[in-house]
């Protein structure tokens, strides 16, 4: 077994085991942690496939940003595991049907020979992976890329519009006003005669 193969099996095993752990452990925070581990080890597998850009971006976006927010929400919510597990028996038939249907479909796809092809030779790259991806993304696929960007912006605006409410009667600070305040606006100096000594 070459070192490369050893690394591949190691990271694949970690990915699979942590993916199983995501759905089996009881504590939701531990599930999130195992999901992070799964992301991380699949990123390592991608790096092994010489797709280092994708691997790094997976860590940057999913682990560094998405999972932070995920953990954030899970920690703030007080999730009761008992109520989550309620009605396990009642939903079991439906769940079983879905699981069996998915398993059958997967087996059919696997057996159909779609995956039964030769391993493609990696295209010889004259430039680095990142550069090659950038070149193709900004020339050939520039329009799909821009459309994806526009859709994301629309999603951001929609999310802000949906959640942002203007509430009346809220005391808000306006930093520019705060900075522009002069002492004359707030302080009034009063000249008084000192009182007579008694």
């Amino acid at each position, binding site marked *: 077994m070459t070192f490369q193969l050893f690394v591949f099996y190691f990271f694949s095993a970690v990915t699979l085991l942590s993916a199983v752990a995501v759905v089996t452990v009881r504590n939701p925070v531990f599930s999130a942690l195992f999901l992070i581990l799964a992301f991380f080890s699949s990123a390592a597998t991608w790096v092994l496939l010489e797709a280092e*850009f994708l691997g790094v971006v997976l860590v940057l976006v999913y682990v*560094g940003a998405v999972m932070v927010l995920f953990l954030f929400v899970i920690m703030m919510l007080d999730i009761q595991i008992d109520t989550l597990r309620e009605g396990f028996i009642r939903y079991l038939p439906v769940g079983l049907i879905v699981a069996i249907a998915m398993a059958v479909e997967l087996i059919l796809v696997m057996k159909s020979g779609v995956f039964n092809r030769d391993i493609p030779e990696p295209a010889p790259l004259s430039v680095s992976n*990142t550069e090659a991806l950038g070149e193709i993304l900004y020339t050939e696929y520039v329009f799909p890329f821009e459309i994806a960007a526009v859709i994301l912006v629309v999603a951001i605006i929609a999310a802000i519009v949906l959640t942002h409410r203007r509430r009346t009667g809220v005391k808000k600070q306006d930093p520019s006003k705060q900075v522009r305040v002069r002492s004359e606006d707030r302080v009034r100096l009063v000249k008084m005669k000192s009182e007579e000594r008694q």
Partner: protein
Amino acid sequence: MDSVATFLNGFLPEGLTTLIVIMIKIVAILLPLILAVAYTTFAERKIIGYMQVRMGPNRVGPKGWLQPIADVVKLMFKEIISPTKASTVVFFIAPMLALAPALAVWSVIPFWDGGVLADVDAGLLLILAVTSLDVFGIILAGWASNSKYAILSSLRVGAQVVSYEIAMGFALVGVLMAAGSMNLSEIVRAQEGGIFSWFAWPLFGLLVVFFIAGVAETNRAPFDVAEGESEIVAGFHVEYSGMAFALFFLAEYASMILVSVLTALLFLGGWLSPFGHALDDVPVLGSVLGDGFHWLFIKSFFFLFCYLWFRATFPRYRYDQIMRLGWKILIPVTLVWIFAEGVAIAFGWKPWL
């Protein structure tokens, strides 16, 4: 290094030799780093001391020089306490999660021309990705401590770090547009030619944004709401003691040094001399005035000093003001700057890109 490799190759298999050479390099980077961390803490106490017209530590060893060693010994012999009902596994994993990324990033940092452990093409991206893992240590420490103060602090850190990462990323986009590469050595080489070809001048706004975001990312004053002594005691590490606490401390100072070195590499030409190659032929001083590690050291030291200077100077930001600064000021500034830079590159306006 090569001679060591050939010597070892004489009686060891090749794979093992590579491994040993890499290990030696890692130790050669990490040992000075940890020493630098120790003396940064000493410098911090001394410098802030002088700024506040007091002496700072001056009892242990000559002029207090052994103070950091004494601190480490003290921390090592302290008992490590884990709170009851805390999630013990996560509680002890968290400090390691905070420290590991802070040390791993140093693998792609070039110290002089060719002096780098891993010359990765996507180096800048790798740094951004690995530093974004830092925050997990803090978040998990807060959660695992089973303490209200700690969890409040970790919520603050989570929101703050995610927000400032965006501004930091945009500042890096400006740098890689100017350099045309994400490899750190290439970025430094793109700034060759003396002080006026450094990126600090055409990208001055991005330099400022990058450093502010860096200060916020490392949770240092004036953005240290994560620790906020007056509000939440000590934040995410209230429940930690002994070496477990020391690991957080180490991670924080290692990231501080990292941000300083990165700013020097990306904007001030790293190991390049401010005189370019003009003074290389000066008889005795030629090697000092030419390129070399000492320039990177001086430049990073300036930014490290700024960290301490800020801490002694500015009062702590309020939490909503931190968010306002990040989202409403820093991000728009970087966006406008990147747009202007794109225009300048498209029209080929040298020397301003």
